[in-house]
């Protein structure tokens, strides 16, 4: 299903048994919790994939592959999915894994207090057929369901009940916040939130271990320069992410390998479609020019994405044409072109729309959410100034950023989107392109209120269409719509840059999850 054009997979050479070794790695963010159902964020889910397993999992090249479920099949004509579980799997504490644990994990993950329950919004019922067979019924045919639960991790009912952790508690925490009892390749040995987390191999793991790690320690390092220094000095074996500007220096170091890939996150500009007037800048209070598609198109043409990628990104990122990256399913090949950089064209469009003399507005930007976010916004400010649009840039920490966007305090804003869960084009269509509808949980991140009737109409069919060609045709159609209307200006696909000591071999998965089980220390 998912195409793989950009995923970089460094193959692991398992020629001869290599020496076992300890492994130290550092990342920007500490996983907030060890509870796989409490927080749905990439750092948490990525980390916990090392200690917990799901029914299915993503392979090195982002294919769905069996994990705790040996196989699965649709029930009837799309009423749901039947999973056959692997036998002989045990949790770290020795308890056996069976269908009841799947049911328990479903109850736990779909509970009100769970942060991942939206994964189960299509599920109407879960039936335990026997100890090793479980059926999931969905409200409509759901071809993506197995892929969408790749990060749903199995917990042991007995352990959770014994430790009073039958429901996740993200506010005050419980036993599962600091402790782990999974079926995964590694066991949690020590956990000091914010400081370090130590894992040791699970000797009784059901799968063959490819790694040769005896002990692995994770340390969060916020300051990217410190992380790079730690890698250079050999204090850690692996760092992610590497600031893009340091990649070249690291590559020049013979002791270090830099692994580059393309992430699943698309960075784009959004507009205040619904607002009648501008809120910021020189033209505050005047009618909102962004309601005119020609102005939006002019913005798209005025931005020299190539220049951004060449300087700020140093050639490591790819331009984006739509809301998903080419690596993801549902990417619309027919709409793969992005508007060319064309200052004259942009000026002509502005003149045509009645803004020959330009106007001033406010651009909101986070300064600690995406790599180089603020630098990119600054560059955009300069580029728009060249077609006569004066931008008042307001960059802020992400903790202030989302509340500002939710309060509609913007004329234009920067947004990055990674389709968590399904890794499919339907995800941004649902969240970013659909008309906001709280009840149906649609358009919840469509801050600007973009709305198109045909797109809204086509969306349910995209979600339930099982025939891949028909589905893709629908996606191509709506992609064309939001491109023509310049609902967003997709800029580029964020690159993934990891750095390792040269004696380390590992695999970089495009979703930026780091899998310890694919690490070899030479």
């Amino acid at each position, binding site marked *: 299903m998912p195409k793989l054009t950009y995923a970089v997979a460094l193959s692991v050479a398992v020629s001869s048994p290599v020496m076992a070794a300890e492994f130290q790695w550092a990342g920007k963010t500490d996983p907030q919790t060890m509870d796989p159902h409490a927080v749905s964020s990439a750092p948490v889910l990525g980390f916990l994939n090392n200690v917990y397993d799901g029914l299915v999992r993503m392979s090195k090249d982002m294919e769905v592959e069996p994990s705790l479920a040996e196989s699965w099949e649709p029930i009837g004509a799309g009423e749901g999915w039947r999973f056959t579980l692997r036998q002989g799997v045990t949790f770290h504490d020795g308890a056996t894994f069976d269908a009841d644990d799947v049911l328990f994990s479903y109850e736990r993950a779909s509970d009100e207090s769970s942060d991942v329950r939206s994964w189960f919004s299509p599920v109407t019922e879960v039936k335990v057929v026997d100890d090793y067979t479980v059926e999931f019924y969905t409200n409509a045919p759901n071809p993506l369901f197995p892929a969408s639960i790749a990060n749903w991790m199995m917990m042991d009912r007995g352990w959770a009940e014994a430790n009073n952790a039958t429901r996740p508690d993200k506010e005050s925490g419980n036993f599962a916040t600091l402790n782990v009892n999974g079926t995964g390749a590694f066991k949690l040995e020590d956990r000091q939130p914010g400081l370090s987390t130590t894992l040791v191999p699970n000797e009784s793991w059901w799968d063959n271990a490819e790694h040769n790690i005896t002990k692995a320690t994770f340390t969060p390092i916020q300051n*990217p*320069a410190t992380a*790079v*220094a730690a890698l*250079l000095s050999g204090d850690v074996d692996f760092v992610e992410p590497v*600031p893009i*500007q*340091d*990649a*070249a*220096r690291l590559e020049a170091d013979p002791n270090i390998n830099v692994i580059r890939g393309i992430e699943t996150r698309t960075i784009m500009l959004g507009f205040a479609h619904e607002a009648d007037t501008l*809120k*910021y800048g020189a033209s*505050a209070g005047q009618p909102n020019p962004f309601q005119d598609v020609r102005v939006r198109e002019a913005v798209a043409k005025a931005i*020299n994405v190539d*220049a*951004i990628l*060449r*300087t*700020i990104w140093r050639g490591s990122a790819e331009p984006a044409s739509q809301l998903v990256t080419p690596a993801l399913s549902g990417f619309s090949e027919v709409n793969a072109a992005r508007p060319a950089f064309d200052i004259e064209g942009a000026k002509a469009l502005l003149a045509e729309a009645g803004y020959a003399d330009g106007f001033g507005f*406010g651009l909101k930007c986070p*300064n600690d959410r995406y790599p180089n976010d*603020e*630098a990119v916004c*600054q*560059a955009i*400010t*300069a*580029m*728009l*100034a*060249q077609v006569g649009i004066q*931008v*008042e*840039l*307001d*960059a802020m*920490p992400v903790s202030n950023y989302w509340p*500002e966007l939710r309060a509609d*305090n913007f004329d234009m804003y920067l947004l990055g989107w990674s389709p968590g869960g399904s890794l499919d084009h339907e995800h941004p269509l649902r969240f970013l392109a659909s008309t906001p509808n709280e009840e149906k949980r649609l358009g919840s991140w469509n801050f600007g209120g973009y709305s198109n009737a045909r797109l809204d109409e086509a969306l349910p069919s995209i979600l339930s269409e099982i025939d891949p060609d028909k589905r893709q045709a629908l996606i191509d159609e709506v992609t064309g719509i939001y491109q023509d209307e310049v609902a967003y200006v997709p800029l580029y696909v964020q690159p993934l840059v990891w750095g390792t000591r040269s004696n380390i071999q590992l695999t970089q998965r495009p979703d930026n999850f780091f899998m310890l089980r694919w690490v070899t220390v030479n």
Partner: protein
Amino acid sequence: MAETSIPLSTKEHDKGRWQRFRESDFFYAFKRSPVAIVSFAVVALLVLAAVFAPLIAPTNPFDPASLNLMNGFTPPMEPNAFTQESFLMGTDDQGRDVFSTILYGMRISLFVGISAVLFAMVLGIVLGLVSGYFGGWTETIIMRIADVQLTFPSILVAMLIFGVAKGFTPVEYRDQMAIWVLILAIGLSDWVQFARVVRGATLVEKSKDYVAAARLIGRSPWAIMIRHILPNAMSPVLVIATISLALAIIAEATLSFLGVGAPPTQPSLGTLIRIGQGFLFSGEWWILFFPACTLLGLALSVNLLGDWLRDALNPRLR
């Protein structure tokens, strides 16, 4: 103790002010001290460069329309690979000429520093005069506040003020606000020294006869304080002001590093260093090096000057 009193200033009123200044011991001491001359020259040069930045700088880094992103990361004195343009100190990630950015950044740093010190000075002088002159509960309250202020490190005070002020300012004014909040924050954390020195001088002068006489003939307290008492406190105040200026410039840099300072679209030296440190390991050393050297040069010269002033004026400083 020493019986040879060497006159401190020649009181010959027929000579012009400049003439008198040139013959003063102060100026003599200045001429004799190479450190003072060099640091004064550096400060003067940097201040002039900042003031006349629009005339000196090859580009205006605050005008986004003049920037070309393709110029980004051009090393100093080397032509850019795409645009063939060459820059004295290279360019930063946005293609801004580092030299121009430093000149403009210094304006902000100096403006913030000088304004903050002036603010602290005025506040400190007023409170110091008032508490020294009136005494009583006014003094108690003011000096207690000063104690409390001293217990709290300036950087935390500044962060607190910044946090609060940010909440009270409408979003659209935040960019302009940042600089004023910096001034307020640094100034507020710095007034105590001034107040203490002025209060001390006031206490000494207040007991002198001429103050009593001035009081008897009915001069207003403020006139007495400003005309008679304040001049006696001016030399220590001047020294403190100089040293505070260096501290304020550094404080501004530190706050900007923590992200509560000048915005990157209008960078101060501190913001430039914050931006530049991200490129330290990547080989674009000039983005950090030149602003850091400028900051070092500026703060060091001001400090040296303050040090020398302290010795030259020899006020009893605490």
